[in-house]
């Protein structure tokens, strides 16, 4: 009896000891693990696959290297990516020829793929050939940097690689730092290519063959991705591997749950909370909240310039003066962003060559009525205002305010809430008269915005304008080598924008990164996701 009791007791002690011993081990591995929660999900391991999500982009930045990457700079005390500073990633250094038509990359001698084989110029060529030839997303992106054909890429020796451009293009080099031109282990990829799929698109969707900072440990599309550190990786700025041993990217659809997880310390960082949750978490002060204006993004109220009544310039102007900007800004974003209204232009000329820029518009119903009268519609008209379900949390209060305010100048607005796919289809077909949408540019230079969002018969030209002068200036500015002249062109483009008012920029929403106080190094990136390689724990 006694011995039985003793045995039981020692058993209990042993179990307790085990539990206690296991606890610190688990706590330590937790400290070396980054758990990132998001409302979206990762659907492919190759960001080039049509339909890939932004979360997939973020994962690919950790699993693959590119030739170059963007540096970072401080903007109002917060770290953001720096378009003008291009650092080497797989390239140790690069030279641009004096005529700016040739870029030569010198690859790192010590760079290895995750399977241990060295990264060679052959791999770089195969990867970039793939990006411009295969039917994938890289093609359209690299086109904006004048890279369109495999003939432009040349292997000089195993560690030297050359890109030839038809024209000097400022955006060629930055383009190679974007998400798509990943450098793939060509031997592995070729071994898994098939006759119908020579670029191994299907295989790379579910497997990685890169040299990046993290190795995929498990990938459950739509649920979670777990990555472990690539110890050999040394492309980070201090020459060492990434900080976290493991990274867990997990989909948690409900924003309130994400907020709870971060607040309880179970998750380390998230960037897509609702503005109201961010507000309350920030006021509690227990978490680190870094709000960066998304300076490469804009939210618009767009009007279809091709159909009545918005084909009338005075109707568009009337709308611009009839929007309750301040109320909308507070109701939709809780003021978390940079307003693009209410500017003062002393001599009626734009004060900045940057795009997006604040326009001198405010709520002024008398002015709006006058414009409406000038348009020949003093009694107003009826229209619908659309937004997509995915943006309902910001667009719904905004739409209600638009409706209320426009009713005062006689414009009757019906609010229409569309499922996301339906909204994008109707925008693409230019069927929506009046709606709100946002845009984002990876390479936010002035001409890039105007060329992509104000020209052509394509989805991103929301207002559907075709202004010959604007098109001509924007195309010329793209290849303008002289900085002062470029500035001049940019100012002209901004002036045209205000004069013809194709759509009304409202604001740049903040990216609110909410993280545990121990997380450091967060940088706002062009792709608006967290780059896990930036982060470390104090």
């Amino acid at each position, binding site marked *: 009896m006694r011995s039985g009791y003793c045995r039981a007791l020692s058993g209990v002690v042993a179990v307790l000891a085990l539990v206690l011993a296991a606890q610190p081990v688990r706590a330590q591995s937790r400290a070396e693990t980054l758990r990132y929660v998001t409302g979206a999900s990762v659907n492919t391991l190759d960001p080039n696959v049509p339909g890939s999500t932004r979360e997939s982009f973020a994962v690919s930045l950790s699993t693959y290297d590119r030739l170059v990457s963007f540096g970072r700079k401080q903007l109002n005390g917060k770290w953001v990516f720096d378009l003008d500073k291009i650092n080497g990633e797989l390239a140790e250094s690069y030279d641009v020829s004096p005529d700016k038509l040739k870029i030569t990359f010198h690859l790192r001698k010590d760079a290895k793929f995750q399977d241990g084989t060295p990264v060679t110029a052959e791999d770089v060529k195969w990867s970039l050939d793939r990006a411009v030839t295969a039917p994938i997303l890289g093609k359209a992106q690299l086109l904006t940097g004048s890279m369109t054909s495999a003939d432009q890429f040349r292997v000089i020796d195993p560690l030297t690689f050359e890109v030839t451009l038809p024209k000097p293009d400022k955006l060629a080099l930055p383009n190679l730092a974007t998400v798509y031109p990943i450098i793939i282990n060509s031997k592995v990829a070729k071994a898994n290519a098939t006759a119908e799929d020579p670029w191994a698109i299907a295989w790379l969707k579910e497997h990685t063959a890169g040299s990046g900072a993290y190795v995929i440990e498990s990938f459950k599309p739509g649920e979670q991705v777990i990555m472990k550190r690539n110890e050999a990786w040394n492309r980070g700025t201090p020459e060492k591997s990434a900080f976290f041993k493991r990274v867990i990217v997990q989909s948690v659809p409900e924003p309130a*749950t994400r907020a709870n997880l971060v607040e309880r310390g179970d998750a380390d960082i998230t960037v897509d909370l609702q503005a109201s949750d961010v507000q309350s978490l920030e006021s509690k002060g227990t978490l680190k909240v870094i709000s960066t204006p998304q300076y490469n993004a804009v939210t618009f109220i767009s009007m279809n310039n091709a159909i009545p009544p918005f084909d009338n310039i005075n109707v568009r102007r009337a709308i611009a003066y009839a929007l309750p900007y301040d109320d909308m800004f507070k109701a939709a974003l809780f003021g978390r962003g940079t307003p693009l209204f209410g500017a003062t232009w002393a001599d009626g000329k734009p004060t900045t060559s940057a795009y997006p820029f604040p326009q001198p518009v405010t709520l002024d119903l008398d002015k709006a009525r006058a414009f409406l009268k000038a348009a020949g519609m003093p009694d107003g008209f009826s229209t619908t205002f659309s937004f997509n379900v995915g943006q309902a949390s910001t667009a719904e209060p905004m739409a209600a305010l638009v409706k209320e305010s426009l009713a005062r100048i006689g414009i009757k607005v019906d609010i229409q809430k569309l499922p996301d796919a339906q909204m994008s289809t109707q925008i*693409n077909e230019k069927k929506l008269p009046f709606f709100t949408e946002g845009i984002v540019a990876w390479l936010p230079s002035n001409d890039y915005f105007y060329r992509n969002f104000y020209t052509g018969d394509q989805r991103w030209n929301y207002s559907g304008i075709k202004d010959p002068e604007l098109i001509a200036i924007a195309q010329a500015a793209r290849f303008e080598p002289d900085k002062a002249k470029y500035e001049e062109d940019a100012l002209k483009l901004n002036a045209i924008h205000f004069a013809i008012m194709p759509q009304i920029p409202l604001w740049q929403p903040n990216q609110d990164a909410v993280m545990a106080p121990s997380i450091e190094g967060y940088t706002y990136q062009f792709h608006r996701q967290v780059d896990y390689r930036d982060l470390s724990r104090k």
Partner: protein
Amino acid sequence: MKGFGVTVLRAARRFMSSLPALFGVLVFTFLLMRVLPGDPAVFFASGPNAGKEEIEVIRKQMGLDKPVPEQLLLYLYDVGRGNLGRSLMTGQAVTKDLRERLPASLELTLTALLIALVSAVPLGVLAALKPGSFVDHGVRLFCALGVCVPTFVSGLLLIYVFYYLLGLAPDPTGRIDVFTSLPPSRTGFLMIDFLLAGDLDGWWAAFRQLILPAATMALFVIAPLARITRASMLVSLGSDFVRTARSVGLSGWHIVVTYALRNAILPVITIAGIVFSTMLGANVLVEKVYSWPGVASYALDALLSSDYAPVQGFVLLMASVFVVVNLLVDVLYGIADPRVSI
């Protein structure tokens, strides 16, 4: 044994006779998805530079460049071979997605139904035994609350109390804590797989993860089950055979359980079958709130992005589940009341 064989044969015949209905559902969903406004190709070609060319590539990939009748024939041919197409949203084959997600939904729904039945039947019986009493009103109030609070509200409320305030529940993110390793997948039901693997810690972790969402769903369906139990118990308690049983002096327990409840259980089974099918498809809010990787949230996401294949696959799956559940309910009928045959 012979009776069992006959039942199986009849069940198989019943199943065969529902095949035309399944086929109709298949064709109808296919056409419905194509009639809906919203072009998946445009939606998925949403890269910052995606133009006409990308849209065409996706359209071709999805087979949308062909005329609709041809698409339908190809689809039917594929379904015949067990291929439900590919989801653009997850990049996986729909059959694979559904196979991974259906057990998650089933596990959650079955647990919820079990909780609901275990609490609803006694509540209904208690209410019926003393109609108009304090207990009866209490049950009515409880049921009313359960029904009128939407599941995402009760879900968020339960998370707030048990996870956020008290810290009793694990974080509400899916079927298992991210730091726990999964058992080898045999059935897809974590509760069973962990037991088969002999991993009791894992089983406990999965159970803790499951209990909150299951309770949320159960709260919502307790009301219909309890109300129907109460109503049919009232009828059978007032019937002649119960009065006879009482008059011959049988014990109260014996009367209530053996005579009254067994006779009153038929409508409860029917309702439970319907409730189960509805829960499986309509628990999308619970799945969203608890990040549960189930089929309903999968289908909703697919519908919002006009991803045809997963929606069609989901509807087909739900129709099949409905057929099977109805069959099961009929078999249970036969057990509860031997006079009923299917």
